[in-house]
Structure formats: structure tokens, C-alpha cells
């Protein structure tokens, strides 16, 4: 059941949504005058805002997890990659 749900979700994201997007994005009705510079740069700034917020939340979560569950342990030691001379 879980597999089917996951599979359908992946297929929806990979196939169904782009197909629906393709069908509806370019219709035949005429458009209105607009300044494409404004529209496109607006989208860019919105996307950058999302990207930076998501980036900071994800990296913050990872850093917190690493500290909370590994590095704060009194017996935590550097791995051999970081050297053992400490």
C-alpha cells in the first residue's frame, strides 16, 4: 500500500503535473499588455526568497540534529578523517 502511494506520488510529480502544466500554460486566448521585465524579475525574487528560506531551514535542521544527537555527546570523537590527535 505504501509502495503504491509512493509510486503514484512520484509519477504525479514526474509525469502528471508537468503534463497538466503543458496543457494549460499555453492557451489560445489573447494576453494583456505587461512588462515582462517586472513579471520575470518578480518571479525570480520570490523564488530566491523561497530558496534561501528553505536552504537555511534545511541546513539549520541538519546542523541542529548533528549537534543534538552526535557532537554534544561527551564521548564524541573526531573520525579518522579529521585526525585523532586532539
Amino acid at each position, binding site marked *: 500500500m505504501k509502495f503504491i502511494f509512493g509510486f503514484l506520488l512520484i509519477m504525479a510529480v514526474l509525469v502528471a503535473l508537468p503534463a497538466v502544466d503543458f496543457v494549460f*500554460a499555453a492557451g489560445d486566448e489573447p*494576453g494583456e499588455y505587461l512588462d515582462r521585465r517586472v513579471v520575470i524579475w518578480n*518571479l525570480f525574487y520570490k523564488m530566491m526568497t*523561497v530558496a534561501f528560506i*528553505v536552504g537555511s531551514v534545511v541546513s539549520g535542521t541538519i546542523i541542529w540534529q548533528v549537534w543534538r544527537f552526535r557532537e554534544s555527546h561527551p564521548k564524541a570523537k573526531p573520525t579518522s578523517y579529521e585526525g585523532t590527535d586532539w
Partner: protein
Amino acid sequence: MSGHSNWPEWIYVAVVIALMAWVGAEAWETERLIEHVPADAKTIIVTGQQWFWTFEHEDGTKEIGELHVEVGKAYKFEVVSTDVNHSFNIHDYVVLMDAIPGRVNTVWFAPDKVGEHDIQCREYCGLIHYNMRGTLYVTEPLH
């Protein structure tokens, strides 16, 4: 489930899905806005070839290396290529469309100020690609 709650994970998943949906919707809406050409847009056939641009207006007049348009009007570019892949770019107006042999790609814009702007090829197309340029002249309406 060994007795611990996993609701934070579900909230996390929901937030991610919501963000993805929002990002997709914004991009979709922008695409819809900028792809729909106004009904009164004038068509200009833009032909890219190594290594210059040719512009053909609706009345049949042609320009090479420069393009004259009138401020406040909408123009639809039908971008084609006769040899290799090019890309038609008016940087100042964020117009960018590939010119592909055998295809007609369209992009439209409506200049809002009188002025001169660079036109350039944005797809490496051979030796003189760097100099495959032109000039866009936005002028006052003649009549």
C-alpha cells in the same frame, strides 16, 4: 511505531509539499502571463543565421542587424534559424528565445520607453558568435 510520535515529520512533509505547490503555481502563472500574446501584436519574423539577424515586418520590409519598433505597441517575434541553433536576446527587455532550424518559436514584448538596446545571440553558434549582434531602436509612433 514504537511509541514515539512522528507528527513533526508529517508537518515537515506537508510544508515541503505546500512550498513546492506554491513555487509551481507562481511559475505557472508567470508562464501563462508572458506566453499569451496580445491580440493586436504585430508580427516580426526574426531569422538567425551565421552570423547576423534579419527582421521582417508585417508589411514585408526587412532590416538586417537593426530593428525599429514603436514605443507602446506589442510585437510578437517569430524566431527561426536557417543554419544552426541561435538564441535571440534583447537583454534590456528580458526577451530570450532559441532560434532552431525547422522550428518557429514565438516570444512577445511591448517596449515602454524610447531608446536603443542591444540585441545579441545567446547560443554559441560558431566562430563569429561573439559579434552576432544588433540594435533595437524604440521610437515614437510615426502616426
